[in-house]
């Protein structure tokens, strides 16, 4: 447990010591939202209605930029070799990488979403439910993304292989995440909102439970 805690802290230190990485992610996230709001200027009601979907899609697009590097560094700089010799389990390693990816990439975007929401006329009553859906749903994005990242671990040229494989896996998260907010915006049904949130939490829970197992298996096959 001590070594896993150490590796987790090192991951966070590594990410946050390279500020450009997450600052650029936040800037790209803001830029997408800002450009769409400029494109739809004068159509405030349309913007309000599409805001939840837009925020979710922007987050997914930004995350795609970070998925490629999740395991890449450790694999090519020899860190993964050292961990394996020291009997660090592939599962524990994948779990740490996925969780630290969520903390470093998703959490900053969730935090700035209430401010970003101003650009897209995000209704003030929707801000808290929006944050709830993001907090529940984005871990699934990180964990599925990590699984995708492990798929391209030993490929030097991979292009669009990973996005094509994992994009369909993001669909349930997008459907339930946006759907939960849509029922609030258009119908105001809290019960239906909670049902969608429960489904989103289910998908997220399944991703957290199974994706590190799949990642661990895929990383192992890269070594065999």
């Amino acid at each position, binding site marked *: 447990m001590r*070594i896993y805690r*150490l590796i987790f802290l*090192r991951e966070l*230190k*590594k990410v946050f*010591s*390279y500020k450009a990485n997450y600052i650029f992610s936040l800037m790209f996230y803001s830029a997408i939202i800002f450009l769409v709001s400029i494109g739809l200027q004068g159509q405030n009601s349309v913007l309000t209605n599409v805001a939840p979907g837009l925020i979710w899609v922007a987050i997914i697009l930004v995350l795609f930029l970070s998925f490629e590097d999740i395991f890449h*560094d*450790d694999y*090519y*700089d*020899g*860190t993964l*070799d*050292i961990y*394996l*010799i*020291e*009997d660090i389990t592939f599962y524990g390693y994948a779990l740490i990488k996925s969780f630290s990816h969520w903390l470093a990439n998703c959490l900053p975007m969730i935090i700035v979403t209430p401010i970003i929401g101003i650009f897209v006329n995000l209704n003030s009553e929707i801000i808290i439910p929006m944050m709830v859906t993001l907090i529940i749903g984005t871990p699934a994005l990180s964990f599925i993304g990590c699984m995708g990242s492990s798929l391209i671990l030993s490929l030097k040229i991979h292009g669009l292989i990973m996005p094509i494989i994992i994009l369909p896996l993001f669909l349930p998260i997008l459907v339930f995440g946006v759907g939960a907010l849509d029922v609030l915006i258009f119908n105001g049904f809290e019960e239906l909102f909670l049902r969608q949130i429960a489904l989103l939490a289910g998908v997220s829970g399944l991703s957290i439970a199974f994706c590190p197992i799949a990642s661990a298996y895929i990383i192992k096959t890269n*070594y*065999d």
Partner: protein
Amino acid sequence: MSVFVNNLSCSQSGIKIISNISFSLKTGEILKISGENGSGKTTLLRAISGLGSYNSGEILISKDQVFLLGHNSGIKQNLTVEEDLEFWSEFYQNKHDNEILKKLGLSSKIHSQCRYLSQGQKQKLALTRLFCADKKIWLLDEPFSFLDEDSSNFLLSKIEDHRKNDGITIIVSHQNLIKNPDLFINLGVTE
């Protein structure tokens, strides 16, 4: 403690790289492996360390006592030398020796980010991890690469100390710095 390798064969993508290698090492012994580029030196070390797979044969080794110093040493570009040293010190639960840092000329670089180190300095940083780990079986893949003469001599003295402390060293090197290995294997030319 010993290392026992019997009839080991490895292949990659269907091409046989190592064929029927056998040796055994006891405490305090050094094995030097040489051979042309692509003759399977690194493949052999990785198989012994447990990282690489092999087709046939047998390897008996105390895995918890293995330290592999490979071509890449787990150095993170955007962490400082100090952060790297602290991490591995805590990882191996063994404080790094400031004297070693001084001897390797890394003391003045302690607050530098690893991205600004030269290849030689990175190799020296990797060596500090070797000394910090306190393992009995050293697998060293070209450890003298990029090192200046003083640092090479320092490493040689450390390898000799390791031998005296009943450690086992398997060293892959093109240079002729290890003068008196107990065992020597030449993997020969690439087919």
